[in-house]
């Protein structure tokens, strides 16, 4: 009985969300085949990004809202790959390399910043994301085409400066990873390569925490002072954790965008942080503890709700808008709830 209670408390969020998902699916009356094919596709599209959040959580930095920096790096890389007309897998590879290079620099800067704001890393990483968004807009709205050369005129605004709202990846790198190996099961398309990459990342993360570096990250996450006394360079380890997260987010965003096929120049990266974090938390992670399974379960649950919410809202209230607002509300509320739980527990430990 005691065990059951403990189980219910520690998995309260995933259980509540499962119930919500099942009822929304029943209300929405969406064809199950459609739902399954959407979920499978979203698993291959979003899981990598969600996984990129795990390392800083274990490193004690909390939810890294700074993954949007990685996403911006990926978009910057893709703009140039598209401009240079590099196609297919080679394009993806070059985009990943460039995104990683930019992400290392950005992650290093983010790590330095977060080390100066110990104890309020989450809010700082969030503001850092907004700040970086300003710089990103400055570069791609005002500098590109004027200071930075860009040849593909059809992606530029009519004056020749600044990118348009959407940049098309069709004909260059769209679905380049998906197309390599597709298995059809009935009506459901399974994109094997992205799923394999996700599996590889899962293995990498598991392996990482068996190495010396991984153990150091864990030690820093448990108690910075004890880790310091034990001879670990805490600041360096934290910076490494942030860099890894940013680089993974960069690669994750490339995978995400090649599936979507178009880049919303000024929006694609903004939503990524919110939805990835919400998905991870829905899967049962907290701001101090996260596993690979939290990520996978979270993507399935969160995106089920994401797919069915508008039609469920339509059936219940006669307005699809209600469903859309409801799904947005859930994303925010889940994060607010997880943060509140985090604050609650930290306070209990302190007392």
């Amino acid at each position, binding site marked *: 009985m005691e065990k059951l209670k403990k189980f219910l408390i520690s998995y309260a969020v995933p259980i509540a969300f499962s119930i919500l998902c099942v009822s929304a699916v029943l209300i929405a009356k969406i064809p199950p085949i459609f739902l399954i094919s959407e979920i499978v596709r979203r698993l291959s599209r979003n899981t990598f990004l969600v996984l990129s959040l795990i390392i800083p959580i274990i490193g004690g930095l909390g939810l890294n809202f700074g993954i949007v920096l990685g996403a911006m790096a990926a978009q910057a890389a893709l703009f140039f790959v598209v401009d240079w007309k590099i196609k297919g897998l080679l394009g993806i590879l070059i985009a990943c390399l460039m995104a990683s290079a930019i992400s290392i620099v950005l992650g290093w800067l983010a790590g330095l*910043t977060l080390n*100066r*704001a110990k*104890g*309020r890393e*989450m*809010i*700082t990483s*969030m*503001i*850092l994301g*907004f*700040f970086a*968004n*300003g*710089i990103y*807009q*400055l570069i791609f*709205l*005002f500098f590109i085409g004027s200071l930075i050369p860009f040849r593909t005129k059809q992606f530029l*605004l009519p*004056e020749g*400066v*600044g990118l348009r709202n959407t940049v098309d990846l069709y004909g260059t790198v769209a679905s380049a990873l998906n197309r390599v190996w597709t298995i059809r099961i009935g009506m459901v398309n399974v994109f094997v390569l992205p799923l394999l990459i996700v599996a590889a990342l899962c293995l990498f993360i598991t392996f990482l925490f068996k190495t010396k570096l991984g153990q150091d990250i864990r030690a820093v996450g448990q108690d910075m002072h004890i880790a310091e006394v034990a001879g670990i360079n805490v600041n360096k380890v934290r910076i490494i954790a942030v860099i890894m997260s940013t680089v993974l987010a960069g690669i994750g965003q490339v995978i995400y965008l090649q599936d979507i096929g178009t880049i919303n120049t000024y929006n694609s990266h903004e939503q990524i942080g919110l939805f990835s974090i919400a998905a991870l938390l829905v899967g049962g992670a907290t701001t101090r503890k996260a596993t690979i399974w939290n990520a996978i379960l979270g993507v399935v649950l969160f995106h089920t709700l994401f797919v069915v919410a508008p039609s469920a809202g339509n059936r219940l*209230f006669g*307005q699809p*808008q*209600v469903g859309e*607002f*409801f799904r*947005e*509300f859930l*994303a*925010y*509320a889940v*994060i*607010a709830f997880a*943060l*509140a739980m*985090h*604050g*609650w527990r*930290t*306070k209990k430990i*302190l007392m």
Partner: protein
Amino acid sequence: MDKVFGWLKRIDVPTLIIFLFLIALFVLAAFTNVSIPSLLSDSIRRIGMNGVLVLAMVPTIRVGTGPNFGLPVGIIGGLLGALISMQLGLTGFVGFWVAILFAVLICIGIGLGYGWLLERVRGQEMMVGTYMGYSIVAFMSIMWLMLPFKNPDMIWAIGGKGLRYTLTLDKYFGHVLNNFLKFRIGGFEFPTGLLLFFAGACFLVHLFFKTRMGLAIDLVGQNERYAISSGVNPSRARLVAVVMSNVLAGVGIIVYAQSYGFLQLYQAPLFMTFPAVASILIGGASIRRANIRNVVVGTAVFQTLLTIALPVLSQVTRGDITEVMRLIVSNGMILYALTRAPREA
């Protein structure tokens, strides 16, 4: 001379940069054919318009919970007050004061709940506040569609259900404060009522911090243990501070809306928070100390900067660079404040 250096040392580097930038913009404006009087009257209007919202940051900073990133929570209360006043069909000053009255009542209610939550999450108030703000805005978006408001000016013309995105206040209490005792000198327009209201609000907050409760709030923010030993109840002080901030946010949005002439619902409350936080920081506040002077100076500098930048910079560059500038300046300022050495912060 020493005095000047001492004064310079106390100013933050970013504040200095922003100030110099502002002066540069004025110089630039003198060379272009932008009408400076109309720019000045725009700036003055926007200072009064945003001032009360910035003022809402003071109580929470002083009690030690950081800037109130949950500003939308209070704004929602203010919007509800304004909506009730409109639904009752009240116009002019009656409408305005009734809106304020309802807003204060609702904000006290919401504020008590919000303060209770923040007390549970000590140390994470900024983050929890931010996401409480986001959540309540999304939740209220559903409510705006469902609440039984019936005034045809407020709901969608087609379908007859759900509130519109922006409501025009012209027939209700739009510009009542702005037009109160307004006078003009050439092209320069001075919204006396608006500034009087802002000054009054500042004065009330200033007075409040002279009372017993206000001093208790200050004490809790400076040293909680010392406060306890002096017989102050820190939880209660924090609750009062949060409620007060909430009420100021509610009043602030009504002042903002009447000056703007429109009431903005749905996503709009989200875009109020970060500029307000940035304003008070630009005025020289940190995340642990703030006073009324920071509010006035910060709002004046930031709003003037935004007003002047648009017409001046649009003559130098193509497109609207001010929106980007606002993002960089406000978030850069918050980032700077968050990363300052702990002894300062």
